[in-house]
């Protein structure tokens, strides 16, 4: 097929492709356009593309981290800026840790022949089966009551003295608490997808490095890691996406200072009077990292997605 000239296809197919593209992107475009409109323009009903674009919504959303005062706002009610920093910290830290831990485990599974690949894919499927809502109750209970340091103990006492606060020092309400759940949720998938990449690294390379006197850790970091970069990229995107987008567990585990962006969006949506412009601007800000990944790494994403089913 490849050496014959592609025969001209019926224009109808192109019409379908264009229509599908419009349908896929349309709602996101609507959000983008509205995020630059004032609420008056959004609700006025004239609609359409004729309006004065403004970045006021973005300014309102980020009012707590902007270096300058805003004229249209006397009080900064929405603390989206802080939430963005929380989201970023949580997503990046959990992605990096998941990758490191997952990589090591995948390497051990492949090279030291622990359990077959079947075990990893069965675990992946089992974990994928567990909805976040199912984890909500136990995680809430455990993180609040069990995973705690006694406030009179050595470390707990130190933390209470340095950072203040009351009661025992618990995981709930901290960044680390949320990060821990995300790592656990993503690990099986990351291990499983990295396995399929590590299998392809030729063993001779590692043996050569070992002959030159490199220890197992050096072999792993200097030889294996650089060779599985595409797999790492796919795994990183999927992990980041979950940690960045997740709402339910974060809302159960966070306190006033560790709220992430999805939580604030949901809270502001349940109010009676939705400020559409500002909320769209926030939604847009939340959507930007995944959109960038999609545009620049769509091939890795498709690899990660199809690996699940096509290779099974």
């Amino acid at each position: 097929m490849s050496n014959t000239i592609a025969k001209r296809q019926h224009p109808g197919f192109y019409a379908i492709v264009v229509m599908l593209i419009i349908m896929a992107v349309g709602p996101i475009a609507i959000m983008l356009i509205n995020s630059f409109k004032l609420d008056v323009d959004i609700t006025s009903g004239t609609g359409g593309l004729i309006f004065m674009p403004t970045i006021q919504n973005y300014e309102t959303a980020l009012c707590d981290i902007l270096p300058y005062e805003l004229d249209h706002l006397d009080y900064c009610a929405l603390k989206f800026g802080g939430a963005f920093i929380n989201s970023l910290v949580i997503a990046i830290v959990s992605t990096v840790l998941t990758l490191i831990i997952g990589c090591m485990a995948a390497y051990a599974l492949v090279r030291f022949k622990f359990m077959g690949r079947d075990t990893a894919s069965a675990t992946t499927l089992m974990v994928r089966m567990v909805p976040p809502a199912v984890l909500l109750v136990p995680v809430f209970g455990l993180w609040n009551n069990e995973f705690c340091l006694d406030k009179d103990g050595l470390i707990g006492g130190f933390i209470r003295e340095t950072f203040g606060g009351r009661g025992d020092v618990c995981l709930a309400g901290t960044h680390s608490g949320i990060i821990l759940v995300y790592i656990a949720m993503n690990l099986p998938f990351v291990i499983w997808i990295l396995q399929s990449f590590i299998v392809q690294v030729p063993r001779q390379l590692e043996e050569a490095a070992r002959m030159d006197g490199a220890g197992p850790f050096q072999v792993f970091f200097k030889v294996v890691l650089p060779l599985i970069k595409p797999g790492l990229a796919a795994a990183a995107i999927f992990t980041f996406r979950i940690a960045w987008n997740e709402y339910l567990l974060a809302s159960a585990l966070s306190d006033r200072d560790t709220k992430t962006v999805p939580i604030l969006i949901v809270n502001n949506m349940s109010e009676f009077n939705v400020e559409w412009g500002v909320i769209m601007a926030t939604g847009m800000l939340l959507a930007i990292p995944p959109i960038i990944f999609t545009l620049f790494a769509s091939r890795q994403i498709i690899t990660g997605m199809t690996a699940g089913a096509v290779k099974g």
Partner: protein
Amino acid sequence: MSNSSINRLYPYVFMAPALVIMALALLYPLGYMVYGSFRDWDPSQALGESTFVGLKNYYTLWNDPNFRESVAVTLKFALSVVTIEMVIGVGLALLLDRKLRGMSMLRTLFILPMMIAPVVVGLVWRYMYHPTIGIFNKTLKSIGLEPIDWLGQNALTSVIIADIWQWTPFIFILALAALQSLPRSALEAARIDGATGWQQIVHIKLPLMMPVLIVTCLLRLIDAFKVLEVILVMTEGGPGLSTEILALRISRTATEFRELGVAAAMSNYLLIMLLVLTVCMLAYNRWMEYRAARAMRVAAEIG
């Protein structure tokens, strides 16, 4: 310690962090949930202080019409979403499996709805469904039709439409990948034998794609039971209980009604449902593979 025994320890060192974290943050919580589902437990107590009530939570739920309604809504949502998405996704893949310009762009842009946060998807659709300023009703009005009460009377349908928008691309992309990895020889042979396009699809392409399609369907079905944020933002489960899927009901029981024991029992019901579904699909897949293998053997013997 000798050098070789250190070497034998390395695999365990490499595995340890992953095992510890998964035991601590996945296995232990799940066990904790099962334990908690037998107790009368509210958020202010530690689990140890709560009283043991046996199967009471399960029993109460079983007889609770609201819970049953919620199960029905969940099943209705998951089954219709998966069926419609499979039909459209596979149909589009079969239709567009040809050399077309713009296909790679379509695949890239098609991923967008899946990648952006479910919260954002809910937000956009809630805006588009808005009774007066939403694009759907505005369009209907401008062509002289009656506006539709999207998130009121037709809430479940509207939620299903939003999910179809978000997840049909997933099935399309997987089905397309499956199509493009089909053995060329079978297709050539069929073409030479004069099979029409339709015959090729029904007798060759679909049967060969079946294993992939079943796994895709299973993955999608599992995910459909996990949907929560999109519906939470769009309807908050309302009006009434019309869109309150199980995941949403669990979170409301835990946070609003503060009945952790009941919520835990509900989570268990959901898990059992998913487990049964998964086992059924996998068994079916095995059976299909077994049948295909036998057919091949028979064909080989005859040939």
